[in-house]
């Protein structure tokens, strides 16, 4: 008995230590993201621009406050959102290949964004820099509500959801392709650009919104952690524990849809992180969702932040879209972990 408690304590200490290490790693990656860039600003310039933007050259202040800081913070935030959403998706769909975008969320967002770009739509009189994310969000979140409604009509659980999601993905891809076909020359490039995903659309207002929503959703995710852990043991077992699986799934899907829709709306679809972040986190802390949820969010933040650093470093002075880099950065770490597990 004592050894069991000691073992448990040991595990908890190990996990808490891991969380602390990850927090530091995340901060370090964020800092690296802030200090790297093609203009070769010195640390001294950077600090002065952060502490007293009025006293440095205007260009320097803009580089720090409009480019580096928002991009770096946005990368951390979006990475965290994708990591958290990914792990929730994999749990509720009981599918290791699930990601925040499995059910067509990013494809639906792309339809909304493309409509706004091609037809210059400005709902609620929003300026273009807000109209595109607004419509992307409406479509992404709307598509999830539609999916939920349809899944309710069908008897079965997660398989129905996945199949309907796949149908949605294909329909949205077709719609986006159609919009690209009728797009005039001056917006065609913007459409392609949007679908690549990039943190260069970050602004402080968008960061504020995303941070607020993430801070709102995270406690609810944490509150559901115990039920989610039980669900990992299997649906029947969870039911016998008295977990309302249907409701758990529904609530989780609403959370994931909300935060992922906003993230996609602001930075476009960034792949890989939502799929692999959770796996890396699982290898590190196991299935206990109380630890898995925050670790997965941190892994996501760390991956996207490192990808953001790499996107500037691969070809100096030129940005390689971060959506492309995420896999290049994440795969080696992922493969290493898998090989270690096999041993």
């Amino acid at each position: 008995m004592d050894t069991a408690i000691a073992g448990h304590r040991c595990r908890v200490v190990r996990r808490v230590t891991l969380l602390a290490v990850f927090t530091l790693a995340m901060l370090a990656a964020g800092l690296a993201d802030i200090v790297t860039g093609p203009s070769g600003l010195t640390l001294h310039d950077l600090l002065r621009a952060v502490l007293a933007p009025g006293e440095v050259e205007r260009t320097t202040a803009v580089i720090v406050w409009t480019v580096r800081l928002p991009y770096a913070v946005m990368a951390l935030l979006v990475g965290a959102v994708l990591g958290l959403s990914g792990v929730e998706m994999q749990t509720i769909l009981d599918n290791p290949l699930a990601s925040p975008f499995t059910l067509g969320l990013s494809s639906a967002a792309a339809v909304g964004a493309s409509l706004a770009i091609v037809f210059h739509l400005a709902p609620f009189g929003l300026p273009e820099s807000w109209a595109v994310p607004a419509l992307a969000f409406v479509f992404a979140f709307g598509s999830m509500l539609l999916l939920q409604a349809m899944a309710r009509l069908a008897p079965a659980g997660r398989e129905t959801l996945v199949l309907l999601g796949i149908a949605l993905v294909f329909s949205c891809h077709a719609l986006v392709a159609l919009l690209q076909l009728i797009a005039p020359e001056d917006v065609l490039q913007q459409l392609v650009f949007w679908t690549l995903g990039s943190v260069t659309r970050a602004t402080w207002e968008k960061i504020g919104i995303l941070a607020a929503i993430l801070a709102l959703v995270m406690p609810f995710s944490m509150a559901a952690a115990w039920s989610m852990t039980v669900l990992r043991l299997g649906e029947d077992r969870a039911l016998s524990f008295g977990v309302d699986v249907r409701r758990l799934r529904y609530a989780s899907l609403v959370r994931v849809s909300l935060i992922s829709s906003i993230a996609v709306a602001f930075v476009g679809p960034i792949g890989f992180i939502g799929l692999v972040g959770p796996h890396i986190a699982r290898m590190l802390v196991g299935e206990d969702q109380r630890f898995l949820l925050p670790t997965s969010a941190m892994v996501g933040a760390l991956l996207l932040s490192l990808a953001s650093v790499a996107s500037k470093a691969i070809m100096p002075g030129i940005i390689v879209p971060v959506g492309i880099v995420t896999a290049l950065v994440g795969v080696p770490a992922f493969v290493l972990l898998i090989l270690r597990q096999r041993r």
Partner: protein
Amino acid sequence: MPTSVRHPVMAASRAAGAVTLAAALFTAVMAPASGRAAEVVDVLGRHVTVPDHVERVVLGEGRLFYAMAVLDRDAPFKRIAGWQNDLRKLDAKTFDGYVAQYPEAAKIPLIGETSEQSVSVERILSLKPDLAVFSISGHGPTEHSPVADVLAQAGVPVVFVDFRVHPIDGTRQSFAALGKALGREAEATAYLDFYNRHLTRITGAVSSLPDTARPKVMLELLAGAWQSPGHTTGSGGMGEVIAAVGGRNIAAGVVPGAIGDISVEYALTADPDVYVATGSRNPGVLLGAQATADEAAKSFAKVLARPEFAGLRAIREGRAHALWHEFYNSPYNIVAIEALATWIHPKTFGDVKPQQTLQELYSRFLPFTPSGTYWIDDAPKS
């Protein structure tokens, strides 16, 4: 990590508030600099204030240099502080010619590769430009791109030009705007006089033609190099040029957007009177700087032999011609306009000589010696 926060909403709104406050403070200290000189109206109708002596210019598309070369003829690369890499990548032979004559062209810092998403705004800012010139469409940053927005915050004036969406009016407006922004009004006016003189000779003769007197034209973009046959443009871009020189583009009204592929079957049924292929590289028609007439003719013959279109009446009867592809995005499009006019209305424009116009363009306005083949008048009859 606590499993619950007492007031998540309050915490979140405080964070958001702090962030917004920081942003507001930042904006407040970034008051605009003074001492502005010229006010330029760009192709989007924006009124842009440009400083008096622009010395460092960043080009959002490398190919915008085609216009810069006319305005800064004596030292074409002197004011270019940075550009995108599309000139080197998409028109390599021309670029090599530039470098042979002006080695410094190879050392101009890159702000990106050939796409908007590769452009680093921080890189642009670090080059300390007095002015950024962007195209309203194409391979570089456009009107509402984050790049343009950040530059605006940094007080770097951005002038938008256009040589491809509306090639004719765009060229005129862009030159007027650039001439003013760069303090080169005289050069811009001289070029526009030359441009308009050659243009009105053609448009004046065909503007009142009824549809029945307008030959049907099929313009195949990057024929043989594009992945599928029938790649073309609708009413914008080169489609606009075809209409201006008195032709009827068979794809106008069929291709809804900027570009699209018409089906082979449609092209055959439309039965165009004139076929024009554009090309620059293998495996299509080899045209442009350093391309020899012989290379061009051989590559064109290969393109015309493709089974899809070999049976077209226009090709069978020898009314098939080829044009350098990059004319679609260049102020030198006046040469293409003349070439197209002579092909579409050979009787009306028997005295129009595009080759002389090209010579005039180089001898009067450009610091380079022309080399290469830019169009093919006569294709071998099959």
